[in-house]
């Protein structure tokens, strides 16, 4: 194809997206669109399955049976969501094993929030409330993204996620209405999870390199800063209802803007964790790699057995 033909195709492609059409796997797409989507969707998938680990740590220690089944179901949902997203990525011509390889080698990223330690039961509440709350804002937006398989996976995920944030907030509410020890536990969790949650929306719009392109392809419909502001606006009243204090002395309602002003994020910390130097980066990757490596003989045996059975059936048929 000549350069001009490609430019024409790209223009037509963009026009389709602008008209609100979805792009499907076998459609022509610019190489950059394909690559960006592999990167973004798989990063999202990795976040789901790495995200199982911090909460998974608490499954055996939940304080009640009711909390046990809720947490188990939630972490299991995350495995399911990872699976939907890996499948969506695979429609772009890359295998799940290759994607795992990228995760394990450190080439692929996942959400940095999961590199923080989950050290008390209240952290489970805070994660559901804040981390799932932040994630869902992105995810709702993505149900209308341009790539069909991604959008469909997000529709399913959003439907299923609806209980996750409520599960977390209910834990916080119970603690907030509990004993002094429980209230302190809740406040301590909020203190530790607040800033990392704000970091989940990514760098500021000025520092964000992908925003413009992502908006064009509808991978994003709002900028990082817009979403972060929206999150603060909706979360502050929820914290007030709990009687907890958000650990930000600059946080205050701005009558003029009709929004909350809030303090500066520690961007040094943000980049440090992104680059692999958070408290739990190594453990998380190690846990994923270890599960994958230990599972190899199981996966291989299942294939060998399937082949054997297929041959038997063939023989019987002859």
């Amino acid at each position, binding site marked *: 194809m000549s350069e001009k033909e490609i430019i024409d195709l790209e223009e037509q492609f963009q026009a389709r997206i602008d008209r609100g059409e979805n792009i499907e796997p*076998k*459609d*022509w797409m610019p190489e950059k669109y394909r690559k960006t989507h592999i990167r973004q969707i798989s990063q999202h998938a990795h976040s789901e399955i790495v995200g199982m680990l911090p909460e998974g740590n608490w499954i055996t220690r939940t304080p009640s049976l009711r909390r046990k089944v809720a947490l188990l179901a939630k972490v*299991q949902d995350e495995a399911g969501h990872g699976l939907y997203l890996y*499948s969506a990525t695979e429609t772009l011509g890359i295998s799940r094993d290759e994607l795992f390889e990228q995760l394990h080698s450190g080439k692929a990223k996942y959400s940095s929030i999961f590199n923080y330690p989950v050290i008390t039961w209240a952290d489970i509440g805070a994660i559901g409330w804040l981390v799932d709350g932040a994630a869902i804002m992105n995810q709702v937006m993505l149900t209308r993204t341009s790539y069909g398989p991604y959008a469909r996976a997000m529709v399913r995920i959003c439907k299923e996620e609806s209980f996750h944030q409520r599960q977390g907030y209910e834990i916080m509410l119970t603690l907030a209405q509990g004993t002094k020890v429980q209230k302190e536990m809740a406040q301590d969790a909020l203190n530790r999870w607040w800033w990392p949650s704000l970091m989940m929306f990514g760098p500021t719009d000025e520092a964000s390199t992908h925003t413009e392109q992502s908006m064009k392809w509808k991978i994003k419909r709002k900028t990082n800063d817009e979403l972060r502001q929206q999150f603060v606006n909706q979360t502050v009243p929820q914290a007030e209802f709990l009687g907890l204090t958000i650990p930000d002395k600059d946080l205050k309602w701005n009558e003029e803007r009709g929004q909350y002003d809030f303090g500066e994020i520690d961007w040094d910390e943000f980049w440090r964790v992104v680059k692999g130097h958070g408290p739990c980066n190594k453990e998380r990757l190690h846990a994923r790699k270890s599960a994958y490596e230990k599972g190899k003989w199981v996966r291989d045996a299942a*294939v060998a*057995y399937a082949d054997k059975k297929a041959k038997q059936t063939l023989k019987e048929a002859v």
Partner: protein
Amino acid sequence: MSKNWPLFEVFIRSKNGLEHRHVGSLHAADATMAIENARDVYTRRMEGVSIWVVESENITASNPEQAGEIFEPAADKVYRHPTFYDLPDEVKHI
């Protein structure tokens, strides 16, 4: 030897009387396992009463580049639709 589990497409009938609908895909070593996995992955919330699985590579798809010639010719065949035919309002049940 390290062979990946092949990809399967999963179709679920949400209740009797409705058709099976594509819900997504998953990996499994064989069809038996694919059914089991589909049950665990795609019907955790009572989404279905029946499951079909088919290995993805066995699906033949139409080519989107030929979408024009395949699908557009149907657009001007308006006589296939009931509204094409003019009948007086007095005529009922037709």
